C-alpha cells in the first residue's frame, strides 16, 4: 500500500518516477470505494476522471524542486471553502453551497501541487466530538465500527487512519483535531492561534478556531505546517511571526528538557486504562533523557465550563449569518445539537446573564492563561491525555448532553490559552487507540515536533493499522 508510506518517501519515489501521482490517486479511490460506505469519512468526493487527469498533469510537470507534497492526493475537512466545490460544514443548510472563493490553507496546499480528493465529514459547524452531529451520516471508528471516530474532524482522521489519503487538513476549536487523531491512531496538530490563516474556514468560535494538519506521523506534520503557516493579509488574526523550518529540528535530542504533567489532568474523570497508557509514555521520554515533573493548573478543572461559555457565545454570533437570503437554506435546518448551542450562547451573552456567564468566563480565561504561562516557566512542554475516556459507542454522547461536553475537558482548556498541542498515538487500551497531547509554548510547534518525532522513533503505535484494513 503506497499511501502507508511517509510524505518524504512518497515524494522521493515520485521524483525518481518509481511511482506516479496516478498510482496514488487510484489507490486513494480504491480505499474510499472499499471502505467509506462503512466509515463515512467523506461528504463530497471529487470526480475520479477529473483527479486522474490532474494527476497526469502533475506527473508530467513534476520537477526536482517541486514541493514535497507535489502530486500527493489529500482531503480537507468540509469546514473549508473550496471555490466552486461544494462546502457544507456538515449541515444541510449549506447542502448546495458552492463557495465563490477558497480558504487560504486550501490555496496553499493546491499551490504546492497536491490533488484534492474530497471533503471530509465532520460534526456540523464543529459542534461535537464524535462526528455524529452531521447531516451526512454519522462516521464510524475504523478500529471498532460500533464506536465514534472522535470529532469534529472525524472525517480526516478516518481517511488517514485507513490510508485513503496521506494527509488532510482539519480544524481544531476545542479538540477537533486532537480528539479524532487520538481515537483513530493518527498524528494531528492544533497550532498556536494565529499560526495558520483562518480565512475561508467556516467559523465555529473565532477566538479559538485553528487550522491544522493531520497525518500519519510527526515527520509528515512538520512538512505540512511549514507549507500552510504564515501571515495572511486577509486574516487580521494571523501572526506575522516567522515560519520556521520545522523539519530541520527533527532528531535533535531532548536530553535535559523538562516535561510537566498537569496534576489536574490526571485526576478523577480520566479513564484508568488511558491514564496508564500515557504514564507509560513518560517512561519513553525519560529514556530519551527528559525529566518529568508535576505542575499545577488549578483553574483548569473549571476549564470546560469556561470553554463552553466562550465558544457557544461566539458560535451563536458566527451562525447569525445563515439566514438563507444570500446562500444556503433556512435556519430550521440546524440540527438540534447546533440549535441548543446557539441558544446557550445567546443566553450567555444576553442582558442580565452576560456578566455572570460570558464576561466571567472571559476573566477566567485570563486566569487560565496565567496559570499556563507559569507552568511553562517550569518546563518545556506539558504532557496530558487527549480524551477522558476511550472512544464511546455511537449514540452515547449525542444523547447525553453533559457527558458530550465533558469530553472536551483536556483539549478545550488548552485551546482557550491559544497554545499549540500535538496529539500522537500513545498506545492501546482494549484494542482501542489512546492518544496523548504534548502542549507547548505559543509558537513553539518546533519543540513539540522534536518531542513527538523522537517518541515516534522509539515506538511504533503510530504505524499500526486498523483491523478493517486487514493484513
Amino acid at each position, binding site marked *: 500500500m503506497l499511501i502507508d508510506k511517509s510524505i518524504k518517501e512518497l515524494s522521493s519515489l515520485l521524483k525518481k518516477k518509481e511511482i506516479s501521482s496516478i498510482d496514488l490517486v487510484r489507490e486513494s479511490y480504491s480505499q474510499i470505494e472499499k471502505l467509506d460506505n462503512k466509515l463515512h469519512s467523506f461528504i463530497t468526493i471529487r470526480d475520479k476522471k477529473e483527479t486522474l487527469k490532474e494527476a497526469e498533469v502533475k506527473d508530467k510537470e513534476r520537477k526536482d524542486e517541486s514541493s514535497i507534497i507535489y502530486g500527493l492526493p489529500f482531503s480537507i475537512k468540509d469546514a473549508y471553502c473550496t471555490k466552486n466545490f461544494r462546502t457544507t460544514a456538515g449541515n444541510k443548510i449549506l447542502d448546495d453551497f458552492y463557495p465563490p472563493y477558497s480558504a487560504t490553507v486550501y490555496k496553499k496546499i493546491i499551490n504546492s501541487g497536491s490533488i484534492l480528493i474530497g471533503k471530509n465529514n465532520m460534526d456540523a459547524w464543529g459542534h461535537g466530538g464524535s462526528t455524529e452531529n452531521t447531516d451526512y451520516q454519522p462516521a464510524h471508528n475504523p478500529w471498532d465500527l460500533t464506536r465514534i471516530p472522535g470529532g469534529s474532524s472525524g472525517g480526516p482522521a478516518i481517511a488517514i487512519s485507513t490510508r485513503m489519503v496521506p494527509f488532510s487538513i482539519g480544524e481544531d476549536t476545542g479538540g477537533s483535531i486532537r480528539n479524532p487523531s487520538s481515537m483513530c491512531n493518527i498524528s494531528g496538530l492544533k497550532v498556536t492561534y494565529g499560526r495558520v490563516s483562518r480565512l475561508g474556514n467556516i467559523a465555529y468560535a473565532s477566538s479559538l478556531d485553528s487550522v491544522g494538519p493531520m497525518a500519519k506521523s510527526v515527520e509528515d506534520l512538520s512538512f505540512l505546517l511549514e507549507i500552510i503557516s504564515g501571515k495572511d493579509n486577509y486574516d487580521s488574526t494571523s501572526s506575522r511571526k516567522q515560519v520556521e523550518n520545522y523539519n530541520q529540528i527533527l532528531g535533535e535530542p531532548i536530553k535535559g528538557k523538562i516535561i510537566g504533567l498537569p496534576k489536574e489532568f490526571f485526576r478523577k474523570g480520566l479513564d484508568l486504562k488511558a491514564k496508564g497508557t500515557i504514564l507509560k509514555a513518560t517512561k519513553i521520554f525519560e529514556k530519551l533523557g527528559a525529566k518529568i515533573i508535576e505542575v499545577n493548573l488549578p483553574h483548569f478543572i473549571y476549564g470546560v465550563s469556561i470553554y463552553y461559555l466562550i465558544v457557544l457565545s461566539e458560535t451563536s454570533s458566527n451562525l447569525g449569518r445563515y439566514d438563507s437570503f444570500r446562500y444556503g437554506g433556512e435556519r430550521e435546518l440546524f440540527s438540534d445539537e447546533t440549535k441548543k448551542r446557539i441558544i*446557550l450562547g445567546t443566553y450567555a451573552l444576553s442582558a442580565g446573564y452576560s456578566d455572570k456567564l460570558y464576561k466571567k468566563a472571559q*476573566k477566567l480565561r485570563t486566569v487560565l*492563561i496565567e496559570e499556563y504561562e507559569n507552568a511553562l516557566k517550569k518546563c518545556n512542554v506539558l504532557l496530558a491525555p487527549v480524551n477522558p475516556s476511550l472512544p464511546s459507542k455511537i449514540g452515547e454522547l449525542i444523547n447525553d448532553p453533559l457527558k458530550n461536553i465533558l469530553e472536551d475537558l483536556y483539549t478545550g482548556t488548552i485551546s482557550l490559552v491559544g497554545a499549540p498541542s500535538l496529539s500522537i498515538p500513545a498506545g492501546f487500551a482494549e484494542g482501542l487507540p489512546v492518544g496523548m497531547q504534548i502542549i507547548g509554548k505559543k509558537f513553539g510547534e518546533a519543540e513539540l515536533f522534536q518531542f513527538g518525532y523522537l517518541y515516534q522513533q522509539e515506538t511504533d503505535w503510530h504505524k499500526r493499522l486498523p483491523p478493517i484494513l486487514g493484513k
Partner: protein
Amino acid sequence: MTKISTDTVKVISKLAKLKLTEEQINKFALDLSSIVGQMEEIKNLDVKNIAETARVIDEENILREDIITPSFNQEQALKNSKSIHNGYFLVPQILKDD
C-alpha cells in the same frame, strides 16, 4: 433543577431567530439546564480585578491601507442565492419604512 425554563428557551430562541417546536422547547430546557448547572461551577470563583480576555493574540493595529481590491461581479455575488430579482437579493417583506 430547572435552571433554564421553557419560557427562557422561548425568549432566547426568538432572539436567536430559531423557530422551535413545543417538543424541542421542552427537551432543550431540560438539556440546557443540566449544562448550565455544570457551568455554574464558576459562580463562586473570585475574579475581582481580573481583566477579560477576548483574544489570544498579542498583535495590535492590524489594518489595511485604503486601497480598492477587485470585487465579485453581480453573478458571483448572487449565484448561491435561491431568490433573486434584477440583480438584487429578494426577501419577503419584513418591515416597511425602515
